[in-house]
């Protein structure tokens, strides 16, 4: 049979997250800017099932000073070069680095040290650059090997061990192997196998080889082989052959090599798939100071080149908190509500008008549901009385800036501190109000403010009205209705609260009033026909702060109410988002408490129109009411006026206290009511007079 070239299966690097954690730690706390070579350790094993590549593992323990490979694994000495910059990583001389480790191996061979400590033949080099801001790691492994002047050759085809040895011989070999390894603290990757004429099998250290050579014994050079291929040995043999050639070539021309593979199943060792090679040695003498050295690892594209791994998902604390929040919510889905559409909630961009007690608590509750975009609008600053009730503020917010920090900005910053994954923004903005006339000089500013509010509403999916006056809710109600956004409204009295969703009309062109002749279900109102915050009022919003005393200008309510109302407002929004009909989810009018028995039509249950709470009785009602065709905010007339008249229309509303009532027909309605009352009285009088006269 002809000779053919001996080819080795290369090693593949296998890292675990712990390795990168430890490297990052060391870079920050130990190495600093020190780029000098550091000692690390890898390990390999010889027990893999068929089909597995040869692997070199590096783990958390790679940095241990007293490194001990895991059970039945073999130590590989490593040199780590961690560069401070990506440029250094790219530009450093790769050949020189490889030669640095190659020289170590060569010295251990020529000095004889590797005879007594053959594990020195097993070396790796790791070049890294750690971008600890992005958690990107650039790395490149080399498993340096010294090459002979002419490649090693195989004299005959590899032989399977079970073809060479009987099963009883293999049993004895396993016993001998265990016996040999038990004398060492770490498993030895290189050894010799001695076969005597009287069929004794023995395993011994390489340095004892002279006891057996030239006697009536057969000596095989054995090594623990991580390779699983039937026709090739693994990488660790290369430097072993270099050592063997250096010491025994040309006196030995051919050697037998046992590629020892030991698979364990149910506690039993199987070595039958090990292979025996007959290798023709070659000269290691060289005129240079180092034989040819090879060994850089190929990357995933099978090119000699570095790799990069992005570990931000498992190492960046911000990413970790994001995935932890998501997982927590997913747990709810897996365990209780398989139909819950979390994605729908997460991607809902929420605009919070008002960053006071309601705004703070609504924002916190939205975070809990995984909402990622939250924008606060407020024109106030944090005052001394705020932090105790407004859960995103602290004392420092009142003192840091004279007069206190902007509420919207402080709230957004606090939210980001709680959860860096949130996109929180604070906008310092005044909301123009009907009946609060705009002075000549402020018209331009007001116009800009209105425009900014419109843009904010456009760029969000849901809006919360959490402002402290009734009339400040008017403008956002109108814009929200015109843009068909989800509008949630929460308002507090002293011990009563209101939480509601505004009806989202399907088409502004159709009439507000129910279609004539259509049978109405009195117990249920479709979401598109529900009223807004202003629908129940027969007076237009005006200046409600004008005649107030000082204490009325602050929110005077039982402190717990804000938490209750905020939580209900968020839960109501989530219920809308989870209902198959969305904003058109019908609302039960809950007459006779029927809502307590009604079937759930969405994973989270009912979607009421309003929640009215009475804390003095710890009681809640869930009324629903239709949109009012003369509503000063959401009626067709007003929306049309706004859509067609734009800022000019709004300015008229701000400046003329009666404009809205005139426009919607409320003035007329008031007049009719008065007339009717007068008429009624007249009639009564007439009737009674008639009565007395009879």
């Amino acid at each position: 049979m002809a000779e053919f070239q001996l080819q080795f299966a290369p090693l593949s690097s296998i890292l675990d997250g712990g390795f990168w954690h430890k490297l990052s730690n060391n870079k920050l706390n130990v190495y600093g800017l020190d780029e000098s070579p550091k000692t690390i350790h890898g390990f390999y094993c010889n027990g893999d099932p068929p089909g597995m590549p040869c692997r070199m593992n590096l783990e958390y323990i790679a940095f241990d000073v007293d490194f001990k490979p895991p059970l039945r694994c073999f130590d590989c000495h490593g040199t780590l070069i961690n560069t401070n910059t990506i440029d250094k990583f790219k530009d450093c001389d790769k050949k020189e680095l490889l030669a640095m480790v190659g020289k170590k191996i060569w010295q251990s061979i020529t000095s004889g040290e590797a005879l007594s400590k053959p594990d020195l033949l097993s070396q790796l080099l790791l070049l890294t650059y750690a971008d600890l801001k992005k958690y990107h790691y650039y790395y490149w492994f080399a498993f340096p090997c010294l090459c002979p002047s002419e490649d090693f050759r195989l004299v005959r085809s590899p032989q399977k061990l079970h073809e060479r040895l009987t099963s009883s011989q293999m049993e004895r070999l396993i016993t001998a192997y265990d016996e040999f390894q038990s004398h060492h603290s770490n498993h030895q990757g290189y050894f010799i196998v001695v076969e005597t004429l009287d069929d004794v099998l023995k395993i011994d250290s390489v340095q004892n080889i002279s006891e057996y050579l030239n006697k009536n014994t057969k000596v095989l050079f054995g090594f623990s082989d991580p390779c699983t291929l039937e026709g090739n040995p693994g990488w660790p043999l290369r430097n072993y052959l270099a050592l063997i050639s250096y010491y025994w070539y040309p006196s030995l021309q051919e050697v037998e090599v046992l590629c020892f593979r030991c698979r364990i199943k149910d506690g039993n060792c199987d070595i039958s798939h090990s292979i025996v090679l007959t290798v023709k040695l070659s000269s290691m003498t060289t005129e240079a100071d180092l034989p040819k050295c090879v060994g850089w690892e190929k990357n995933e594209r099978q090119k000699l080149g570095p790799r990069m791994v992005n570990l931000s998902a498992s190492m960046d604390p911000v990413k970790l908190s994001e995935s932890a929040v998501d997982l927590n919510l997913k747990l709810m889905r897996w365990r209780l509500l398989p139909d819950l559409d979390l994605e729908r909630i997460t991607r809902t961009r929420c605009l919070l008008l008002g960053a006071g007690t309601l705004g703070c608590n609504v924002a916190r509750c939205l975070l809990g549901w995984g909402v990622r975009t939250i924008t606060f609008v407020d024109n106030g600053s944090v005052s001394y009385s705020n932090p105790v009730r407004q859960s995103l503020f602290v004392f420092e917010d009142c003192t840091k800036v004279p007069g206190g920090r902007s509420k919207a900005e402080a709230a957004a910053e606090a939210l980001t501190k709680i959860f860096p994954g949130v996109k929180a923004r604070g906008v310092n903005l005044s909301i123009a109000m009907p009946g609060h006339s705009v002075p000549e000089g402020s018209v331009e500013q007001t116009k800009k403010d209105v425009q900014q509010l419109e843009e904010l509403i456009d760029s969000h999916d849901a809006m919360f009205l959490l402002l402290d006056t009734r009339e400040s809710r008017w403008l956002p109600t109108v814009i929200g209705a015109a843009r068909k956004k989800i509008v949630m409204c929460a308002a507090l009295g002293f011990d009563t609260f209101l939480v509601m969703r505004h009806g989202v009309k399907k088409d502004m062109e159709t009439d507000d009033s129910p279609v004539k002749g259509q049978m109405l279900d009195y117990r249920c109102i479709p979401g598109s026909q529900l009223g807004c915050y202003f629908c129940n009022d027969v007076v237009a919003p005006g200046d409600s702060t004008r005649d107030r005393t000082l204490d009325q200008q602050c929110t005077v309510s039982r402190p717990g109410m804000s938490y209750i109302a905020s939580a209900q407002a968020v839960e109501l929004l989530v219920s809308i988002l989870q209902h198959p009909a969305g904003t058109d989810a019908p609302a039960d009018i809950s007459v006779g408490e029927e809502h307590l028995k009604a079937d759930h039509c969405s994973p989270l249950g009912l979607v009421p129109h309003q929640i009215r709470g009475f804390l003095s009785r710890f009681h809640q009602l869930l009324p629903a009411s239709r949109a009012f065709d003369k509503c000063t905010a959401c009626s067709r007339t007003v929306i049309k006026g706004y859509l067609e008249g734009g800022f000019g229309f709004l300015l008229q509303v701000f400046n003329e206290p009666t404009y809205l009532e005139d426009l919607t027909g409320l003035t007329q309605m008031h007049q009719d009511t008065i007339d009717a009352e007068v008429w009624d009285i007249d009639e009564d009088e007439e009737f009674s007079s008639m009565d007395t006269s009879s």
Partner: protein
Amino acid sequence: MAAGSISEKKFAECAIHLLEKSAHQKDHWTGEKSSSGEVYLQKRCTIPCQLPMPTTRERTLSDSQNIKEPVEDLDEAVVQDNVSTSTSMVTFVYHVVYNASYAVPVLYFNAYKPDGQLLSLEEVWAIVPQHYQDRLREERWTFITQQEHPILGRPFYQLHPCHTSTLMSQIPDTPGSNYLISWMSAVGPVLRLEMSMRYGEII
């Protein structure tokens, strides 16, 4: 102790027993001790594992940037058609830690790609064998969540312990049986953690 749960002392006894059995049959369980003295079991293994999606690779350095490749002499002594090019491997690390509030052992695990990247939860689910996926839909004893490891402080996946005692209360406590072995042979295979039959032998 409530049905299906065990005390910390009993956990330690079972763990020692399991380690003896592991050593006896050359399995790879090790007992680990944290710097603060907490004890847990650990096993690692690397197995060939085809991930459903091709591993999403960030652009590599040399794709966009000019890297000085090593001037390396041609090395003909390398197996060209190597299995490493086609086989992807996943390294599993399993930890068994005692949880005092549930009074049950908890299985923590991480699964890494060769470059050290953690498998995402979706990828972990994708490598759960199909017949277990079907079973998981029916049975509620396993939920995989990601948690900070109680001892190491790094993120680990966890089989949620809330149903462990329910599961274990259905397994009779016969003399010679080991709580940890019974439990791990029930839940382990879901996560590619195989327990050989020999753990059932009485030694």
